[in-house]
């Protein structure tokens, strides 16, 4: 019985997988640097970029590109001990080939697929529910997702607002998305505070709130249906449910400072 402790990155995870495949270890737990010590013998591995890259390429070559994507996307989900499930799938994939993707009624596969479905749902929700504020010509927003969807949202917003400067902060995973006229970058970040809005921004927020109130038909009020489509957990960062004061006291960030960092290096969209 062993446990792996790694740095929480995808490369770190793949390094552990490499080790498990090579040594035949059957880990029962994956730990992050801050987690408490496990009962079992713990192996601490530093991310090895070379091994990670070779294993990642092998997933596509030896199994299939779709399988590779399944593992990479699966790593972004918030499934507890997702590493164990993904390790199990990688083992099976390397043994059985791409056929494993059809085995949807397998308990591990079903678990990963369910987590993925939830992640894509959250991604789809946030494409619509993200709210930006115009602060000195820069569009600033904030999300608090369960899954790490910011990397998936990045290309969507960079393309949609290809002429704008954008900052989108992920409170859960402490990550910032920066985009300057279509060129974008993801950076780790914390302690983010949003500045106060100007008069024009406040005017548009007010108009949006009014529009939102007006568009509902009184005779058809249906809060249950509303919550089914838009769970309440999204609302605490949405303009139409907040006053200006609430927005400024709750939304953290210092966009001007964050923007000074290198955000011009082009990443593939």
């Amino acid at each position, binding site marked *: 019985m062993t446990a792996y402790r790694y740095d929480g990155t995808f490369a770190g995870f793949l390094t552990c997988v490499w080790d498990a495949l090579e040594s035949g270890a059957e880990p029962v737990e994956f730990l992050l640097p801050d987690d408490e010590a496990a009962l079992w013998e713990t192996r601490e591995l530093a991310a090895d970029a070379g091994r990670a890259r070779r294993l990642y390429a092998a997933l596509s070559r030896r199994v299939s590109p779709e399988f590779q994507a399944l593992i990479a996307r699966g790593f972004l989900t918030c499934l507890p001990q997702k590493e164990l499930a993904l390790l199990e799938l990688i083992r099976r994939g390397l043994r059985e080939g791409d056929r494993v993707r059809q085995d949807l009624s397998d308990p591990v596969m079903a678990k990963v697929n369910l987590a993925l*479905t939830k992640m894509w749902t959250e991604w789809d929700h946030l494409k619509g529910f993200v709210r930006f504020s115009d602060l000195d010509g820069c569009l600033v927003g904030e999300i608090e997702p369960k899954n790490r969807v910011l990397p998936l949202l990045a290309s969507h917003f960079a393309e949609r607002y290809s002429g704008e400067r954008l900052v989108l902060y992920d409170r859960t995973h402490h990550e910032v998305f920066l985009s300057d006229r279509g060129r974008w970058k993801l950076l780790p970040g914390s302690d983010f505070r949003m500045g106060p809005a100007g008069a024009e921004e406040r005017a548009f927020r007010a108009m949006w709130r009014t529009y939102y109130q007006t568009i509902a038909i009184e005779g*058809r009020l*249906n809060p249950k249906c509303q919550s089914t489509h*838009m769970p309440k957990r999204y609302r605490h960062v949405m303009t139409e449910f907040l006053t200006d004061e609430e927005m400024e006291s709750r939304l953290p960030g210092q966009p001007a400072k964050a923007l000074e960092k290198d955000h011009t290096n082009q990443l593939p969209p």
Partner: protein
Amino acid sequence: MEVMDKLTILADAAKYDAACTSSGVIRGGKPGGIGTATNSGCCHTFSADGRCVSLLKVLYTNHCCYDCAYCVNRRSNDVPRTAFTPRELAELTIQFYRRNYIEGLFLSSAVLKSPDFTTERMIETLRLLRTEYCFNGYIHAKAIPGADPGLTYELGLLADRLSVNIELPSEGSLRLLAPDKSKSAIFKPMAQIRDGAAQSKAELKLYRHAPRFAPAGQSTQMIVGATPESDRHILSLTEGLYQKYRLKRVFFSAYMPVSDHKNLPAPMGFQPPLLREHRLYQADWLLRFYGFTAQEILDEDHPNFDEALDPKSDWALRHPEFFPVEVNRADYEAILRVPGIGMRGARKIVTARRYGPLSFEGLKRLGVVMKRAQYFITCSGRMLPGLRFGPDSVYRRLTGLEQGASGGEGWQQLSLFNGDVS
């Protein structure tokens, strides 16, 4: 008048339009422009009535020269009137879009002076958005019946989707409640949009840069519950619209009492037929995605929905000869007809059974919900072990599920102590 006041009045006047979809067209970002469009559309928020808000849905103006009894904007109604200027509306759209409040604009209008004059104002707004602001997002525009075909064509070149509301499900009702509109005036632009879109598609195959006319197709809407048509009539009409006019969507809108006209249901104590509207949408889905025909869903003996049961379960109970369906062998189309199994479930079943035979446990792990499906399927020749039922008890159990699901008004809560439920 401030833009804020105009927005309040003109959004309030537009809210009875059901359609707020932004689907049907894929467009990447353009350098120097703003906006993209995706095939499945995007909901940006949900209003307190549970409806998706995807587009900024406003009227260009609520000054109207018509007097349709069911409409809040009829000229005899005493409400404040106003109109946007094209510049105001374009600016508002862009500013809302930048903040990710909306997916685009849904521009409708009351008829100011004449259909032509109104359409010209709408074209001006859209042209400003598309050319000056380089807006690349979604635009849905209402074609005004009676406008010059040339103007409607111009509108369709700027918009992604056009729609013409047929308003009421029969010509008789139209004559009664909307004396200024006629059936032919409504169907003429509809046919024009259909032909224009088909022609544009054909031209695009030859020339990559051919102008795109209404690439996301057209939709329509009708009011349900203001006039006496049966569900069967409405559903056949819907099917006809999909087939003959190649519509992308038909929307139903439960009549809200906005007027005390003598030809309309009395507003006092009138309950909008929300459940009926819901059943119509369920049936509409069966038409579009599940391979049902209107005749199958409702026939001469059943002209109206059984409101206690969804249309798919209703059909299944009337066709015992079709069931049980064997999930390990049946075609995709047959699996789709099982109540409780949707397109996603059916696709998963077809994929997963390639790996190995499916059991009931396996089905549950796939995410197939068994509460309805269990009565209609077998796994490797067996029904769910321990399940006992007859035709009557299935009806009772299925309607019981519906009561739990809708939970709203008009339904009685099941109670252990209520003798007449069992």
